[in-house]
């Protein structure tokens, strides 16, 4: 068996993205963030990302520390808080300000996205659309990273009770899972992410499958789509799906029969 397929997925989202995601997900009030709850969730997602060995920025850890600091300050009775903060009524305020400002640009970015989509339907005289000279390789276009990680988290939670089964150490690799997923995509064209994780017995298998999915998306073989925010995520075969995946591994992967 060849070496373990190593997925290097760069994460371009930052800690503020994750915080806004969590706030929006639970419909929290951005001006009155329940810091304890958000910190717990934040750390949970951070651990998931580390478990997946995603290439995350150091800023994620800084933010975790900041959150914990805010949390500890909030625990102190007002009169016992250090002098400096007496002026600043709420230790959360700096963070809130930053989040609110970022949110504005996120909204502006959504509008750009909308303009881009509309632009996509317009062609010039030669049928050419204005193409970006570099492939927009900034991965995970259709569904946010944190949405995917949420789905992954749910799958993990479902399996927790059956963790004992891991004793029968089935060995899964990302490479295998890329093949399995690719095969299934060619056959079914489309399935939901919960179907994808169904019947999986171990955390290991789920993690491998998830990484395989990320890799397929990165290689433009699969697309993750979501109809509504926080709705079910579906995996689809990308339009230009290759006959054989993965291209990176040599010597393995018997190719799929050509259709």
């Amino acid at each position, binding site marked *: 068996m060849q070496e373990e397929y190593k997925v290097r997925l*760069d994460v*371009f*989202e*930052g*800690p*503020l*993205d994750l915080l806004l995601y969590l706030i929006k997900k639970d419909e929290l009030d951005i001006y009155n963030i329940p810091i304890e709850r958000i910190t717990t969730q934040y750390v949970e997602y951070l651990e998931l990302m580390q478990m997946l060995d995603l290439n995350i*920025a150091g*800023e994620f850890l800084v*933010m975790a520390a900041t959150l914990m600091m805010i949390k500890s300050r909030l625990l102190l009775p007002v009169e016992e808080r250090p002098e400096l903060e007496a002026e600043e009524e709420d230790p959360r305020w700096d963070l809130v300000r*930053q989040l609110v*400002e*970022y949110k*504005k*640009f*996120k*909204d*502006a*970015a*959504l*509008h*750009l*996205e*909308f*303009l*881009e*989509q*509309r*632009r*996509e*339907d*317009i*062609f*010039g*005289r*030669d*049928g*050419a*659309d*204005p*193409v*970006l*000279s*570099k*492939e*927009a*390789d*900034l*991965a*995970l*276009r259709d569904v*946010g990273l944190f949405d995917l990680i949420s789905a992954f988290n749910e799958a993990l939670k479902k399996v927790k009770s059956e963790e004992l089964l891991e004793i029968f150490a089935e060995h899964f690799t990302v490479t295998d899972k890329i093949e399995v997923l690719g095969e299934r995509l060619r056959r079914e*064209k489309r399935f939901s992410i919960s179907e994808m994780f169904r019947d999986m017995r171990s955390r290991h298998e789920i993690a491998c499958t998830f990484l395989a999915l990320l890799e397929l998306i990165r290689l433009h073989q699969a697309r993750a*789509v979501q*109809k509504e925010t926080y709705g079910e995520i579906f995996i689809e075969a*990308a*339009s*230009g799906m290759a006959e054989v995946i993965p291209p990176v591994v040599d010597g393995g992967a018997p190719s799929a029969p050509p*259709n």
Partner: protein
Amino acid sequence: MNDFVLPELKQIIGAMLFVRKEPLTVEEIRRVLTATAERRGGITSDFAKANEALIREAVDELSRDLVERKAGFHVTEVAGGWRLENDANCGPWLRTLLQKGRGTRLSLPALETLAIIAYRQPCVRSEIEAVRGVAVDQILRNLMEMQLVRVIGRSELPGRPWMYGTTQKFMEHFGLKSLDDLPGTDELRRMEAEQQALRATKAAEAAADEAEEPTEVEAAEDAEGEGEEGSFEREGMTEEEIVGADDSEGEEDEFADEEEDEFDDEDDDEFDEDDEDDEEDEE
């Protein structure tokens, strides 16, 4: 020449647009009209008198005609010229005809970075990172490679970091005529204005501190700015290009709304599935 009927100016321009892929400018149109008059003389010389106002008028009329007749394409102003483009709501069929998938789209982090640059330009990397709360160097590099962003100078801040701005290609990619087409411009611009005021005072202070520096600084700025631009085909936007031509703003958004809902979902589902069915049938 027996059947020759003298065309109207708008017809001539329409015909020119029809055969031209690249945007056609007023100057080009005038040049063609004069050159033809010189070569052919006679009645064609009438058109040589057409000035910019007349040409613009003719284009407007042509543009209205095409829209009224629902010809499926229209005149659009882009990169300082005009060209023909299909109506956006016909896109799904064109994509089938041309066998095009979805175009290259930018990721949200990239779009956010672009948005920050678009509203705050000229801005340095640390400003962008302060807003996004995470390093953006790789995204920035990609955006530069895609020619959506370029260096437009150096800041007076310590370390004299690069200042970034959006390009003409950015405007084209998003179909913007001016930066005013961006939403919430007022609010986000106000911040920009504040920042510029801040920067101006800082610059003034710096200038006061080192009275001789500025000339040197400017020279370096020019030289380096130029070098950076060398790899980009398009010239940087001038202030006029960014601000100019802001007539038809509102209408764009209107039909865009419906289109988004109706087509985007449907076309992903139905059109694609139809295709797939066909393929399977063939097998």
